[in-house]
Structures are given as structure tokens and as C-alpha cells.
């Protein structure tokens, strides 16, 4: 089976070669030097080429074409080109140039073309040096496609040994960097060297356009083949000071499928041998000052994760619930909060979020990424700027205490690699006062709750206003109100008594008889008034039948109070009298003693009665 696949692929390439060889030469551009380096140390194949182009023709050239075989083109995740200025150590790379898909006429159909637009057209005899970086995903094919737990994980990488270009290439070389020294096999062209974990091809000189020589490298790769089949990142901005990021991952081990049984015993005892193809953990590099980090999945929290942080970054190491072997899947969610002032800024009356696009996971391939930026409710005039093309939508999300919902900007991209972790901006306008709306709503809600309670207590909700029980209830309420009034009056009387007592004490201290007499007079007047007030109330109680059973007690209370009044007056006069007569303290006490006892007893009785009446 393996032979069959290999054979078919060879055939594909053969066809490609034939197609390429029959293509016409494009322009007068000559690539004087091409240095390629293919980095296969991770699951992403990164090809960086340094291209020196010379214009050999008469007309100026403003764009350079890159050719990529169709087979690889569908795996192309990232492609940039930069101009390199200077030489040797002084070389600096300039700004990224525009790279767009091109469709030049008369080119072989098995190739995809991208054109690099040069910053200034290349005149005759001028040359330019470019640095082109391309990242391919899923281009390391596991071979064999199914392995057991104990097998080593081998992958196959295919490319061309000669630089495939529509232009003639003068000098070129290629270096392939592999993760481990263990290489199963590799295509040997002339001038091929194997330096441990590196394979060098070239240099080759003076090759015509569309030179193509397929190479295949079959090597061991034990790095994590973590592929996020789907990643949804939700960034929610709260102007109370937090940017909440939630990331939902659906991860699969993209390497060779595992077959046969999984033995925990083997994995446990010899994880390096009997589980080399599996990966146990992933590392995410979060921005600094990330807080409230959580890691969970659909069925709950996952307790195997570690967070390390310093002022530059927060690093989180997460272990899925189980080690992932080839083809095994897992899904989880991580979430964290970030300080608002690190990511949201204000300029020209607009606010903007400046956030990185891709996944914070180390060396992960994302097949499909959906980024949702949830802006606070009431944000307007939204606009987005991204460093590369993405699909863009808008939707509404309902969250806590929302009335209209929060505007959400949805950005979608397929086939993302860590190179896509570039900053993008979302501009919007937001009035800071709108922040207060939700607390205000809560306050209003609770306020109305209380108001309803108050209204409910005070409003008469009975249906029939003329039924006997309703009337009886009304009457009873009246009785209670009356009793309440009586109690108030008695309390006033009692406080007047206290004042009298106080005046007596003042007398014994200061000897001011006049003040004492004045107090007595005032108290007399007050008490008289109070007893006047009391009369109609008692009369009312006597006239209402439902009050019959409490009437005696109330009457007793009033009578007791009156008696207490009399006694107190008697005591008061006696003391004032004896004071005027300048009698000694002992004698005065003797004279008042009997009255005093009565007063105490009465007071006790009144208290008991008041308590009783209270109970009604």
C-alpha cells in the first residue's frame, strides 16, 4: 500500500515536470542568487528564501512572480516578502511587500502564482534582494499512515530540489533542517550533503526557468502535531477595566493514526519509547498580567495546568485530560482576563482595541479560526483593520443585563499559523456614561421591588368591600389604632412622671425649690391635657363591640396610671414640703417610703399591662 502511494505521488510530480518544461519564459528578470532554507523542526514547514533578482531586459519590472506547485499551494498558510537592504552584517529587512495571487497567461496549470509588488520598479541592470517566507501546514505526511503505540513516528516531506521559478536562476542552494538526526531516507541529487540533522543541496548553477527536481525526505518527527480543527476566540471588552478572553479549542493529533491497543502500563513505564508519538501538554504564551485563568471542558474543570508568569508574559502549560496519540481528539476552553488599559486605547475621539489575532499556543496549526470581539453595549461606528485578509461579519450577543445586546465583530480565517499572531485593531465609539446603565438598571429593579412590597402592604386588596368579615376587619383595625393611641398617651404620661422624678433629683442636688415647683406645674398641665385626650378614645372603645374583650384591661391600665399619677403628686408635694421645712434626708425618706413602694408596685403593674396590651 505504501509503495502504491509513493508511486502515485511520483507520477504526479512527473506530470508536473512535463507541464512545467513546456511553459514559456516570462520576462527578462534573472534571479542571480537564491538561497532556500526549509525548516521542518515543527509540524509547520517554513521555507525562507533569499532571492536576488536582476533586471536584464529593457523595460522596467514592477513585480516578481513566485511559483508554487498546486499540491503545496493548498497548504500554504502564510506568505510574506521583504526587501533586504545592505549587505553582510548591515543587512536590514524593510517593510513587508504586497503579495497577491496572480494569474499570468500561458503558465502551466499545475502551478499557482503569487506576485510580489516591488516598492519601486526595477530599472534595467538594477537588482533587488528579497526575503520570502512561506509557511505550509499539513505538508508533513505521516508515513506509514497508521502506527502502534511502540512505533516511531515517521513523516515524509516533498519539495523540489531546484528552485521552481518562471525566471532563470544563476546560483542556488537549499538547506533542509530536520528535528532529529534520524533520517529514514532522502532523495540524493548531485551535490547532496547530510550533516546530521541537516541536509544540504547545491549549489546549482545556471538552471533554466521551471527547473524542477522532486526531492522527498522521510524522517522521524516526534514534535507535537497539535492541530486545532476549530478555534473560537472571544474577546469581550468591559470598560469597567477588563478584557476577557475565552478560547475554545478542538484539537486533534495530526500525525499518524494510532492503531492497536493503548497500554497504560507501557506508556507509564516507558513514556519516551512507548509513547514518543504522543504529546502530553501544550504551552500557551499569554500577555503579561493575565489573571483569573481557567482551563476546563464541557464536563468540568481540568486540574492539570501550571501557570508561570513574569513581567513580559504569562506562560500556561496545559495538559489535556489524556495524552494525545495520533488521531486522538480533545476539546477544551481556556479563559483569562487582561487589564483593559493594556489593550484598549483612545485616539481622535475613537477607542480602539489592539489585540493579537492568532492562538497563543506554541506551534499550533489552526484549521479554522473564528475571532469574536464583543464590544460593550452601546458601541457605535465599528471598523476593523487587520494586517491580512480575513472574512468579516457582525452579530449581536446578549449577555448580562443587556437590553439591545452587544455588537460583535466576527473575523474568520482558515489555515492559521503562529505567524498570524499579529495585531489587529477594532475601532469604535463608546460613551463612558453608558457604563453606568447596568448598575442603574439593577438599582431601579431593586427599588421597584421594595416599592411593590410597600404598596402591597398598604393597599387593600380585598374583593368584596361590604362583606361582614371585611367590615369586622376594618373595625378591628380601628380598635387597634385606638389602643395604639392610648398606649402612646400612657407612654407620654410615664415620661412626664419621669420628668417629675428628675426634678426631684435636681432638687436634692441643687436645692432649687422654685424650679421644682415650676416643673410640677408644667407636668400638671400636661397630664391634664393628656387625660382629656384619653377620654374620647376610651369612649370609642366602650362603644365598639369587638373591643369588649380588651376593654377591661385598657380601663385597668388607665386607672392604674391615674393612681400612679396621684401617688407621684403626693410624693412630690411631700418632698417639696419637707425640703421647704428643711428636714433631713432620712426623715424625708421615711415620709415618702410608703408612697414610694406603691409607686414601684404600680409601675410594675402598668408595665405588665402595657405588655399585655401590646400582645393584642
Amino acid at each position, binding site marked *: 500500500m505504501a509503495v502504491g502511494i509513493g508511486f502515485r505521488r511520483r507520477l504526479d510530480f512527473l506530470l508536473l515536470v512535463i507541464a512545467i518544461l513546456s511553459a514559456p519564459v516570462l520576462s527578462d528578470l534573472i534571479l542571480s542568487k537564491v538561497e532556500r532554507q526549509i525548516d521542518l523542526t515543527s509540524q509547520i514547514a517554513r521555507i525562507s528564501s533569499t532571492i536576488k533578482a536582476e533586471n536584464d531586459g529593457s523595460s522596467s519590472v514592477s513585480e516578481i512572480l513566485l511559483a508554487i506547485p498546486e499540491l503545496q499551494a493548498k497548504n500554504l498558510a502564510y506568505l510574506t516578502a521583504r526587501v533586504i537592504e545592505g549587505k553582510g552584517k548591515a543587512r536590514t529587512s524593510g517593510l513587508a511587500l504586497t503579495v497577491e495571487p496572480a494569474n499570468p497567461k500561458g503558465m502551466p496549470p499545475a502551478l499557482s502564482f503569487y506576485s510580489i509588488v516591488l516598492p519601486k520598479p526595477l530599472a534595467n541592470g538594477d537588482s533587488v534582494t528579497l526575503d520570502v517566507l512561506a509557511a505550509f501546514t499539513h505538508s508533513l505526511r505521516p508515513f506509514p499512515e497508521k502506527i502502534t503505540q511502540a512505533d516511531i513516528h515517521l513523516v515524509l516531506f516533498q519539495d523540489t530540489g531546484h528552485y521552481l521559478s518562471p525566471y532563470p536562476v544563476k546560483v542556488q542552494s537549499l538547506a533542509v533542517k530536520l528535528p532529529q538526526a534520524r533520517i529514514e531516507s532522502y532523495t540524493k541529487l548531485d551535490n547532496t550533503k547530510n550533516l546530521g540533522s541537516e541536509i544540504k543541496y547545491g549549489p546549482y548553477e545556471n538552471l533554466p526557468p521551471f527547473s524542477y527536481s522532486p526531492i522527498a525526505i522521510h524522517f522521524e518527527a516526534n514534535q507535537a502535531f497539535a492541530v486545532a480543527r476549530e478555534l473560537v476566540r472571544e474577546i469581550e471588552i468591559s470598560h469597567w477595566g477588563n478584557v476577557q478572553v475565552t478560547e475554545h479549542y478542538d484539537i486533534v493529533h495530526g500525525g499518524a493514526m494510532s492503531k*492497536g*491497543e*493503548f*497500554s*497504560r*502500563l507501557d506508556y507509564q513505564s516507558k513514556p519516551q519509547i512507548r509513547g514518543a508519538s504522543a504529546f502530553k501538554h501544550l504551552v500557551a504564551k499569554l500577555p503579561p498580567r493575565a489573571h483569573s485563568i481557567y482551563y476546563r*471542558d*464541557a*464536563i*468540568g*474543570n*481540568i*486540574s492539570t495546568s501550571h501557570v508561570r508568569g513574569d513581567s513580559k508574559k504569562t506562560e500556561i502549560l496545559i495538559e489535556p*485530560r*489524556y495524552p494525545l496519540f495520533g*488521531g*486522538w*481528539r*480533545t*476539546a477544551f476552553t481556556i479563559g483569562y482576563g487582561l487589564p483593559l488599559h493594556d489593550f484598549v486605547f483612545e485616539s481622535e475621539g475613537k477607542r480602539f482595541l489592539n489585540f493579537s489575532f492568532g492562538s497563543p499556543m506554541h506551534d499550533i496549526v489552526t484549521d479554522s479560526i473564528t475571532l469574536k470581539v464583543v464590544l460593550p453595549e452601546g458601541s457605535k461606528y465599528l471598523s476593523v483593520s487587520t494586517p491580512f485578509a480575513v472574512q468579516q461579519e457582525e452579530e449581536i450577543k*446578549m*449577555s*448580562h*443585563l*443587556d*437590553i439591545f445586546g452587544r455588537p460583535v465583530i466576527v473575523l474568520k480565517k482558515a489555515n492559521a499559523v503562529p505567524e498570524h499572531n499579529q495585531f489587529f485593531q477594532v475601532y469604535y465609539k463608546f460613551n463612558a456614561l453608558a457604563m453606568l446603565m447596568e448598575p442603574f438598571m439593577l438599582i431601579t429593579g431593586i427599588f421597584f421591588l421594595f416599592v411593590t412590597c410597600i404598596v402591597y402592604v398598604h393597599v387593600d386588596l380585598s374583593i368584596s368591600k361590604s362583606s361582614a368579615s371585611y367590615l369586622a376587619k376594618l373595625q378591628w383595625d380601628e380598635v387597634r389604632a385606638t389602643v395604639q393611641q392610648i398606649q402612646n398617651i400612657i407612654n407620654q404620661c*410615664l415620661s412626664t412622671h*419621669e420628668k417629675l422624678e*428628675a426634678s426631684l*433629683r435636681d432638687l436634692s442636688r441643687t436645692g432649687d425649690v422654685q424650679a421644682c415647683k415650676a416643673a410640677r406645674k408644667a407636668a400638671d398641665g400636661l397630664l391634664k391635657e393628656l387625660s382629656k385626650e384619653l377620654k374620647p378614645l376610651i369612649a370609642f372603645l366602650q362603644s365598639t363591640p369587638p373591643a369588649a374583650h380588651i376593654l377591661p384591661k385598657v380601663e385597668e391600665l388607665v386607672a392604674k396610671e391615674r393612681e400612679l399619677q396621684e401617688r407621684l403628686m403626693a410624693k412630690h408635694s411631700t418632698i417639696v414640703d419637707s425640703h421647704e421645712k428643711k428636714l433631713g434626708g432620712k426623715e424625708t425618706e421615711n415620709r415618702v417610703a410608703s408612697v414610694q*413602694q406603691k409607686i*414601684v*408596685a404600680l409601675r*410594675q403593674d402598668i*408595665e405588665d399591662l402595657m*405588655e399585655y396590651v*401590646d*400582645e393584642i
Partner: protein
Amino acid sequence: MPPQTMSAKTDATIGVNGTAKSASNQAPPPMALPANLKSDLLNKLSLKSFKLKTKQQELLLRVSILFLVYVLAFITRLFSVLRYESMIHEFDPYFNYRTTLFLTEKGFYEFWNWFDYESWYPLGRIVGGTLYPGLMVTAALIYWGLRFLRFAVHIREVCVLTAPFFASNTTLVAYFFGKEIWDSSAGLVAAALIAICPGYISRSVAGSYDNEGVAIFALLLTFYLFVKAVNTGSLTWSLASAFGYFYMVSAWGGYVFIINLIPLYVLVLLTTGRYSMRLYIAYNCMYVLGMLLAMQIRFVGFQHVQSGEHMAAMGVFFLMQVFYFLDWVKYLLSDKRLFETFLRITVTTTVGLAAVALGVGTASGYISPWTGRFYSLLDPTYAKDHIPIIASVSEHQPTAWSSFMFDFHILLFLFPAGLYFCFKRLTDATIFIVMYGLTSMYFAGVMVRLILVATPAVCLISAIAVSATVKNLAQLLRTKSKVTQGGSSKAASGSKASSKALLDQSQPFQRNGAIALLLGVFYLLSKYATHCTWVTSEAYSSPSIVLAARGAHGNKVIFDDYREAYFWLQQNTPTDAKVMSWWDYGYQITAMANRTVIVDNNTWNNTHIATVGRAMSSYEDEAYEIMRELDVGYVLVVFGGVTGYSSDDINKFLWMVRIGGGVFPVIKEPDYLVNGEYRVDKGAAPKMLNCLMYKLCYYRFGELMTEYGKPPGFDRARGVEIGNKDIKLEHLEEAFTTSNWIVRIYKVKPPNNRW
């Protein structure tokens, strides 16, 4: 006492009792002020002007105590969330969670008509018709309500917190119930006791999303409303109790307790001559409406008129009518002798008719006989002999004394004291609570899980004891202080005072005794509180799906193997894979792994479970046949030999043998035992050493060193070296084993090619 509390302002309120309270609340006035100004200021500032009347004070106090109890009942149940996380516990709650999720996603009609293909493969289960929907509907309503108010909560949070929320509500009901049967102070004590009672907490901690969490609330509410209806004779209250009963029926199968206890209570009232119009109204309205409403629940259906368990209620209903009729005839007939003959004739005919109806109904099969569960309640040994599947559940075992002590603590001996108080003041209400207490205590003794039903009664009755005792003692103290006050102020007092003084002399240590007793009561209550908190935090807050242990250095070690395995199943098996496991894990597998199971915790089909039991206890090739027939893709076993986790499948294995053997006589229990002893080491029975369960649990275990100084293959759960270390699997292969070996999943291989 008063002079001490008022030392701060001696001049203003000497000897005035009434102001003592407000005075003690007062800040001491600045000393620099002149005396005059000071007293003025005092009068103005005095809280006296704000002073609440005694009644309002009491109301405020009561409301705040109730509020605190409400909050306490909620937060004491949150231990598990703090210790672990906001997650669903145990086994059954996972089914409830799954159905609630379904309900909130698909709506009520879909839920009601749900046929679940994912369980009981290949039979399936009519979920809508075989569950009590009360819990799910309640949670869904709360969820929708919160969503409507724009609180974007997750349904899981709602489910996790439903039980604590209802426990809080139960305290309110307990308060009102206590108020109804005794007085408001007893109600307060009852609310406080039930808020933290371990017997109730065991089923209502956060995450324990089970029927009982809501049902105890519904049970107590129904009882309270019924007692209220009996006390008032009001149609409104009995209507309310009918609705309470409806809610209870919708929530839990334990409603059978209500529908038998209430008729029993009515019968007792009738025989003790306490028949009244109030009772007549309360019972008839409650029974008729409650029955009609209960029929709306599909799982209950026509049982109220067709099942033996519900016949007592119907009998009492007819009896009530006869009673009423007789009363009416008695009222019409002035002749006493004539009435007696009439009475005799009517009673004999009614009893005869009832007996005939019952006999015919039972014989014709219209009235179904009592179910096994009901029998096992009346006769604790019944299940053990006849229905192993009921007896196999640990919570169906008879209760040990220690668990009574564990769950009730001091309530256990406050309960008889409360009964004494109830008998001393017999009313319709106290008779009810006494009957509720006694019957539920009996049931609690029969089955461990029924302690839950007894808890409210025990709390209420104990509350009566506490409240009555404290009240008596406090009264003693209060009158005492008054008398002493009176006595000190006056040597030769009036006749009243002297008689009190006489009483005083007759019991010289009464006051001290009362103080000592009060202190004793508070000591006991504080002990109760600490015990409850300890039990809640240590014993009842473990989710049982995540296991925690202490490591060698005292650190907490988490064994999250169950979820590891379930998540692996969910992610890495075909979506239509069928998983065979013992029925305990069925609900969890369907809810968390989202895979079809053969049997689950809804043990409705004994034969199906027995088939699984048979497969587990057969040799591999026989089991393979059964598994092929059931289209099983994966087999899941739980194994504690590495971690020392004792509730694993090897320890449950004898029940599988028994249940399997109950249906398939090829499986014989003695084959797995050696001299009546269950062993897994070298001395184990040959059939045991080669049955599927043994092989799956111990596959390649013989090569593993589990403990230092012990031979490889040492089973830490049972403390022996296993007897069969060379296990070869022919038709199955290890698909996954969790990191601590607690869950092992095997893949059933397709049949070999014939050539």
C-alpha cells in the same frame, strides 16, 4: 443587673427598667459637657424616639433570624463548590442534568415526547413517560426566568444551585410549619435546625441535582398546607395543599409516603373522635384535586385509582363520606336506638362493599399489587430474598445506628422529648407531626436513604422540645428576677408577693438550675452546629466523580479518572458506539461521554441488567457472543486496585453474579466463591479467575508494581496479590486506561476473518 448596664449614664435613668435597652445602645456622652446640656442631648439623641414597639422589635428580630437562617442554609451547602468546582455530583444527577439540558434546548413538548435511543440499547427509553419532571421543569423555569431578567447564567450553574436554593426555601416552610403546630419560636428553631441538619444536607449540597433536593421542600410544603387546611377548614389552604401535592408527585416517587400518611392521619383523627367539618373539607378537597392533578404526570398516570399503594387513600375518602352521611342521619334521627341499628347496617354494608371491590379489583388485575419497593419497606428482608437489584444499592440497606447519630446528632434524643411535649398538648396539628415523625422514623430505620424523609419531622419535633424547654426556663428566670426585684424594694410586701416568696423558698435552687439547664441547651445546640458543619464539609461535599486523597506530604491529590475516561470516550470513539458497563455508570456515560449505553441507573428492565451481569461473569468467548448480540463496541470497567479505591467493579461483582444468576441460571454464585468466601488471589475459584470482569480489571495488572515492598500485581483495594497474572484477551483489546487505572475501557474487536 440593670444598674450595671447603665453605668455610663447614671444620672438620667436610674432604676427605670423600660429604658434599659435603649440606654445600653447609647454611646457614652462626652464628659466635658455640662450636666444639663448633656441630659438634653441625651434625650434628643436617645434611641427612645426611634424605639420600636415590642411587637415590631419581635417582627424585626424574627425576620432577620429567618433571613440569616435562609442564607445559612444556602451557604453551608456550598462547601463542595469551594472544595472542588461547580459540578454535578454522583450518578442520578447526571441524568437529571442531561434531561434538563434537553428541556432547555428543545422545549417542553420535545422533552415530554422524548424517546431516548442512547440508553438501554437496543430497547431505548421513553424518557418523558418514565421520569418525574418536577426537578427539570423547576430548574428550567429558574433558568428561563434568569435569562428573561438578562442574567446570562449557564444551565449547569442553575442545576448545581437548585438543591441549596430549595433547601433554603425548606427552612421557610419549616418555620411556618413549626408556627402552625406549636408557636413562632418553635418555628424559628425548626428552621435553624433543618437548615444545617446533615440528614438533609446529604441530599442537597450544591451539585447534588437530584429529585430529593426539590422533593423534601414539596413534601414539607404539602404537609404544612394540609395541616393549615385542617386547622382552618379553609378551601383555599386545602387547594394549596393539593397543588403542593401535585408538585411533590411531579418531583419524586416518595409522594407515595404522603398519599399514605395523610389517610392514616385522617383515620387516626376519626378513631380518636376528632372528626370535624374542617377535616372533612381539607381531606376531600386535597384528595380529589390532588389525585386529578397527579394523573397529569405521565409516569404516575392512573396509579391513584389502580395501584394497591394508593388504595388506602381512596378507602379513607369513602370512609369520610360514610362518616359525614352518618352524622347527617344522626342529626335527622332523634331516636338513638334507631340510629344505632342504622349505623350497624351501614358500616357492615360499606365494609363489605369495600372488601368485595378490592377483592374483585385485585383478582381481575385492575388494581395492581404492591410493588417490590413498597414491600421491602414494610418487610426489610423482602428485597434481599426476592429483588437483588434493590438490595444491591447501598443506599437501600437498613440503617446503622451510627448513621442515625451521624445524621441527627442531638436531634436523636431531642426527638423523644419533643414527642413528650406534643403529647402534652395534643391538637390536630401535633397529632399530625407525631404521626409523621413516628412513621418516617420507622422508614428511616428500614432504608438509609429514607433518613432524608424523617429529617424534617425530626427537626420539627426537636424544635418543639428545644423551644418549649428554653421558653419554660426563660420564663422561670424572668418571673424570678421580677420577684426578687419586688422583694428587695419592700420587706413586708402584699399578699401576692409573699406567696411568690413562699414559692421561692420551696424551690431554692430553681433559678440556678434554670441557668444551668439553659447553658446546657446552648452547649448542646452549639455542639450540634459544629457537628453539622463538620459532617457537611467532610462527608457530604464530595462529588464522588472526582476523588480526592491526601498525598504523602499532606497535599491534596485529585483523581479525576472518571472524567478523563468519559471525555476520552466522547472524543475518540465513533458517535454511535455502544458502551457496556455495569449499570451504575450508565447515566454518567450518556451524560458526559454522550455514548449509547446498554443499561443505566434507571433499573427498569431487570433482564437487560442481568444480561450484562451474565456477560461480565462469563468466560470471554461466551461474553463475546453476548456482546456481539448487543452490538457492544466498548466495555468500561472501574478498577481500584492501583489506587485502593474500594467501590470498584470487583467489589460489586458478586451483585452482578447474583442479578445475572437471578435471570440466567447458568450463572451460579457458588462458582465464584471458595467455601463461601469471595477472593481474587491465588485461592480464588477458577471461574472467578477467568471471567470477563476479572480479566478486564486485571489485564496486565500483574506486571505493575503498586506498592513498595509488595510483589507486582498487588491489589491495593483488597490488599492481596492477584491470582491470575497472565491474562490474554482474545476478543477485546485495551483501548484506554486512565492515569490512575480507575477506569479501563476495552474495545470489542470485530470477528476474525474466516480465511
